[in-house]
């Protein structure tokens, strides 16, 4: 108690009561003073004596502490920790001092203008003869000190942004390890354990024990938060719970202290705070990343419900199975549909259809051929018989018969009337006989030969188109060998698009030479076997 060292603060009621209770004390002084006294015949008092008597009088008037209501002004915090200020109201003011030991216990933050109730003793500061209130307790007027302190700290931290939503870190959805700061013996740890075990037993729970009320609790809670946060990575802690069960405002006060607020705010690990009952809100709650009404609620917010998660897992597994089964079923159905198609049901059907078609076509083709042959034969039959009638021998016979008949009739008719007529008749008969049937036969032969030539020409035209040529003698005989022509012979060369005439000069591999005419050669040539070149025209 540093205040005890201040001599002016020492206030011994027995001593104070001395001058009044014991007249012998200070008697000498009084006499001396009385000797020096003025008009009233009493000796003057020393300053000390006067102040002393004033102090005595005050002590007599205010034997115990008094409580004074007033507004703070001139409030000064000395570096020594003492506070100096004035209390005033509309009509008066009073100096006051609050020594460090008392000031330290004030929860709120006093400042000018604040109306307070100050409790203390009235005394005189001897050195200055100054009346002072030696304040031992100070509370805000109206609200309680704690309420005010809470409000003040809240405003201050709010200004600093400690409650900003943007400063909140998200808590993991499925925590692996949870660090808990609370008392190891309180109801909170029991509630938290029960809740975590029920909801999310997969998480490891670490308890960092700390007192949660009383002197120094705030500092220890703050330290516990700092230590847990520092060890979080090593221990795998991804969520921290700061909790305390219900209690009075005073009981919960540690969680309203700046030290706790700073530690919670500084932690890198997300923190869930659950302090007091539902109605209580602490600064710790406000700074924490997630604020819960109670320790149980904090545990509930920190972890998911395993029942719900298991349900979700089952649902996911069900959805997976259903979907894949559906996919397989759809595939199976599609496959079955394809298998039902004709192609797979009867793979040879198509082939059979084709075969049938081939059969049909071949049948038709055969039928057509046979029909045509039959038709041809049918047409050929009459032609044959007609042709037989037209045979030159028959024609000649018939002509001769007709001539004979006519001649007979003529002879019979004329009756050999005239020799000249008979001569004419025989001449006519001769012409008839010489000209008619045989002449017709010759004509037919010529026609056949001409047609044959045409046929021949047609058959080799295609070869000519390939660049070959045909050379004939002037008589039209084919030149098949170099020996077929002689120097000076005229030849005609036929090409695909026309022909020209030329004269033989001599063999291509020798000088031009005179050779005999080709008549004999031709005869000779007829006797020769056919030239292999003929194959071109086959």
């Amino acid at each position, binding site marked *: 108690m540093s205040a005890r060292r201040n001599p002016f603060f020492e206030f011994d009621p027995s001593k104070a009561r001395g001058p009044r209770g014991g007249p012998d004390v200070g008697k000498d002084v009084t006499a001396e003073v009385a000797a020096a006294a003025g008009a009233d015949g009493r000796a003057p008092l020393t300053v000390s004596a006067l102040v002393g008597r004033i102090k005595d009088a005050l002590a007599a008037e205010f034997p115990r502490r008094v409580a004074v209501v007033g507004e703070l002004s001139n409030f000064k915090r000395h570096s020594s920790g003492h506070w100096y200020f004035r209390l005033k109201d509309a009509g008066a003011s009073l100096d006051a001092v609050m020594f460090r030991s008392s000031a330290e216990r004030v929860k709120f933050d006093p400042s000018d203008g604040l109306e307070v109730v100050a409790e203390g003793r009235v005394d005189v500061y001897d050195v200055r003869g100054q009346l002072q209130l030696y304040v031992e307790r100070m509370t805000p007027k109206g609200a309680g000190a704690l309420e005010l302190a809470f409000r003040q700290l809240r405003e201050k931290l709010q200004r600093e942004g400690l409650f900003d939503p943007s400063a909140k870190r998200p808590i*993991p*959805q*499925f925590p*692996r390890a949870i*660090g*808990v700061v609370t008392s*190891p013996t309180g109801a909170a*740890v*029991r509630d938290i*354990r029960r809740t975590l*075990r029920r909801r999310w*037993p*997969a*998480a*490891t*729970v*670490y*308890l*960092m*024990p700390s007192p949660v009320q009383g002197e120094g609790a705030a500092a220890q809670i703050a330290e516990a938060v700092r*230590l*847990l946060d*520092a*060890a979080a990575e*090593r*221990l795998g802690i991804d969520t921290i719970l700061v909790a305390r069960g219900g209690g009075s405002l005073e009981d919960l006060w540690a969680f309203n202290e700046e030290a706790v607020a700073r530690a919670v705010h500084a932690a890198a690990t997300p923190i869930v705070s659950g302090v007091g009952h539902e109605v209580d809100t602490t600064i710790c709650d406000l700074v924490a990343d997630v604020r819960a009404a109670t320790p149980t609620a904090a545990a509930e917010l920190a972890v998911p419900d*395993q029942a719900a*998660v*298991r349900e979700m*897992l*089952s649902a*996911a*597994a069900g*959805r*997976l*199975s259903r*979907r*894949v089964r559906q*996919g*397989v079923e759809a*595939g199976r159905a599609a496959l079955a549909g394809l298998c039902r198609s004709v192609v797979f049901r009867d793979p040879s059907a198509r082939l059979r259809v084709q075969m049938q078609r081939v059969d049909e076509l071949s049948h038709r083709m055969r039928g057509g051929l046979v029909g045509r042959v039959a038709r041809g034969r049918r047409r050929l039959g009459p032609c044959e018989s007609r042709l037989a009638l037209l045979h030159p021998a028959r024609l000649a016979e018939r002509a001769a018969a007709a001539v004979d008949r006519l001649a007979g009739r003529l002879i019979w008719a004329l009756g050999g009337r005239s020799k000249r007529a008979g001569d004419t008749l025989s001449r006519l008969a001769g012409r008839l006989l010489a000209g008619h049937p045989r002449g017709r036969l010759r004509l037919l032969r010529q026609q056949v030969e001409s047609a044959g030539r045409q046929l021949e020409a047609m058959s080799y035209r295609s070869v000519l188109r390939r660049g070959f040529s045909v050379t004939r003698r002037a008589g039209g005989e084919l030149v098949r060998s170099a020996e077929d022509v002689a120097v000076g012979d005229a030849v005609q060369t036929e090409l695909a698009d026309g022909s020209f005439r030329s004269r033989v000069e001599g063999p291509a591999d020798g000088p031009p030479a005179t050779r005999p005419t080709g008549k004999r050669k031709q005869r000779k040539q007829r006797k020769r076997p056919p030239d292999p070149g003929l194959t071109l025209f086959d």
Partner: protein
Amino acid sequence: MAEEKKLTFEEALEKLESIVSAIEEGKVPLEESIAKYAEGIQLVKQCRAILDDAEKKIQLLAKGEGGELTPAGELDEPEQ
């Protein structure tokens, strides 16, 4: 497999969700979806195993010699 064991619950669940939604969207060919189905069911099992592998005790922490927190036993159970 050893690598799969290291999956956290969250990672396993995320993977499971992506598999389920991929299959549900029908973007995966049937053959692949069957393989993914097997993987998904494996993940479900893994998630359940994590849940079943429950910690029964609360570890008490205390400051060790180096000032570091270390588990210093288990919290006594006042009930049961």
